[in-house]
């Protein structure tokens, strides 16, 4: 494992003195764990600000918030470097930050500015940051799944020591592209990790009403790959599963399907009138908010103390504020350039 550095093994030594320490904490350095916490804050705050600007009528179009799902995005990306690819979804802000994107360029894209990751052409549903290996959010449910398999095919051909991680939702697992893609990834033993963020609903349709299997991970049987269901609100559970699956992929053993059980506490998108979920259900999941849970573990296992946590939170807040400022003061694209960037030549 590239990601287990010396520092990690030091942390590891300390931790090993404690009972019940989740495995994941042994894999990462203190800085990596602080980085993970910071990313979770950044995601949460990015989306709160996005929501706010929406409500104040400052932004346009639609948007899909992943508030409540941060552990899945950050946990999965823990063992990844910029050489690894991800494909993301319409609910992609979290994946994008987890993979290392700058919130400033993300806000700029969100506000349709020329300085945004997509020069204002893409918006929330298409934010991508190729420099960190994020091949982009996708407006088409299931649209990114074969693309991730293609990225894995490239990795294999180019003999790179890398992996492609494919995020998608529980709803997407009923698309034909899911089936076709997992089948190909398996027969060709490609270095890809399929991550189904099962937040219980595809828009308004619960998994019980849409999906003919209890655990989506059980569908891995059809593709002769390991399928594992984890608590998607537990950073450490998600990160452990990811570390294993990434190692498996990189060693040439082929793909894994990870199902992260989680929940979006906000509505599906702007148009959601919340007719399909009960307040009780939402509250119950809100009580399992991944961020306090992660903080709790870090405190419990003596990895960070309150002061350190506060420092991380403040650093995230400063980054969000300057990111917002950058975005807001950025110029709009020139309408005369509307038909640029269609072709390379």
């Amino acid at each position, binding site marked *: 494992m590239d990601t287990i550095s010396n520092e990690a093994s030091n942390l590891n030594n300390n931790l090993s003195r404690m009972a019940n320490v989740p495995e994941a904490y042994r894999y990462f350095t203190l800085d990596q764990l602080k980085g993970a916490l910071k990313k979770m804050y950044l995601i949460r705050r990015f989306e709160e600000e996005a929501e706010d600007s929406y409500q104040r009528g400052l932004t346009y179009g639609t948007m899909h918030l992943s508030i409540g799902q941060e552990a899945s995005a950050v946990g999965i990306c823990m063992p990844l470097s910029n050489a690894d690819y991800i494909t993301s979804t319409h609910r992609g802000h979290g994946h994008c930050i987890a993979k290392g994107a700058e919130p400033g360029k993300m806000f700029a894209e969100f506000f349709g500015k020329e300085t945004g990751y997509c020069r*204002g052409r*893409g918006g929330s*549903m298409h934010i991508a940051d190729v420099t960190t290996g994020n091949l982009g959010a996708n407006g088409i449910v*299931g649209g990114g799944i074969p693309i991730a398999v293609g990225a894995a095919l490239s990795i294999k051909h180019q003999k790179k020591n890398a992996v492609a991680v494919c995020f998608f939702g529980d709803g997407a697992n009923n698309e034909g592209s899911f089936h076709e893609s997992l089948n190909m990834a398996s027969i060709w033993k490609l270095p890809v990790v399929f991550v189904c963020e099962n937040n219980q609903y595809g*828009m308004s*349709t619960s998994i019980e009403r849409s999906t003919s299997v209890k655990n989506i991970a059980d569908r891995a049987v059809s593709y002769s790959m390991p399928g594992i269901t984890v608590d998607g609100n537990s950073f450490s559970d998600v990160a452990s599963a990811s570390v294993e699956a990434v190692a498996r992929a990189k060693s040439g053993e082929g793909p894994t399907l990870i199902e992260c059980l989680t929940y979006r506490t906000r509505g599906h998108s702007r148009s959601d009138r919340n*007719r399909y979920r009960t307040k009780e259900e939402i509250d119950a999941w809100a009580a399992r908010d991944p961020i306090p849970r992660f903080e709790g573990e870090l405190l419990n296992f003596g990895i960070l103390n309150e002061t350190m946590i506060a420092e991380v939170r403040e650093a995230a807040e400063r980054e969000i504020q300057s990111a917002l400022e950058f975005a807001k003061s950025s110029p709009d*694209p020139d*309408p005369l350039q509307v038909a640029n960037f*269609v072709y390379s030549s």
Partner: protein
Amino acid sequence: MTDSAIREISFSQAIYEAMALAMEADERVILMGEDIGVYGGAFQVTGDLVHRFGPERVIDTPISELGGAGVAVGAALTGMRPIFEFQFSDFATLAMEQIVNQAAKMRYMLGGEVSVPVIMRLPCGSGSGAAAQHSQSLEAWFAHVPGLKVIEPTTPYDAKGMLLAALEQNDPVLIFEHKLLYKMKGHVPEGHYTVPIGPSETRRQGKDVTIVATAIMVARALEAAVILEGENIDVEVIDLRTLRPMDTESIIASVKRTSRLLCVYEGVKTLGIGAEISAAIVESDAFGFLDAPVIRLGGQECPIPYSPGLERASVPQVDDIVRCARDLVRRKI
């Protein structure tokens, strides 16, 4: 004047009403689509129908456009009258196989022994900031396919009447619904009536130039006509309404009077619906009446961008129509 005669409802309510009427009258009518049940549809068109007719007739499908459309085709083939909603017409790209290879061709391939009375509703168009994968106007693809009928109503009155007419067809009918029209209000009678599939409708008469428009462009063309009136340019506006089969006759008749034709549509200009309008008119005996080339004002040759200013620039706006029509009228061959 009765209450009904002045009653105004929105475009989406008009579609809702047509579906409700059809479901009351005919057990065979069922609705299928993603989140059309308790959610009421992505654009709230199916509304409370699931509560009125139950989940057996208002069926939330999984997110499976190819399979879902195929199920609707199979049900239509065996005696049902499904109305299938795509959340966005962009997602019909996943179901082209069933629409084009199966639904459109089945009757022909089977020598006329079957019919496939499926209706598909496809919200389309830009203007809502939904960007490249949720804003396309792909109507031209479908209008290219024999076996399909393709309609695109632009008023609440027509939306209800044409959907009810589609339900009397025994062939697959695709209804493109421009998103920006959903909230538009207009007079809609209660009860059952139909607006025939096929004929276009002249929304404004004029003698200097004919504008044939589709979807939201009809409203923009009418706005442009008012502005041009101020410049003493008298514009005729034809709402095409049905894209396949196309009512070329009415356009020919109009062009013979105005001698000038402008086609305005939101789809990409190249091979968009205006290409057919232009080619069909030029091919007809209206050709000899033309005092200027037929001009097309269509969408830019790019995907629909997100940023509002870019998005506006990517499809025709009222002032673009004004400018084009003015140039055309001033033009001599």
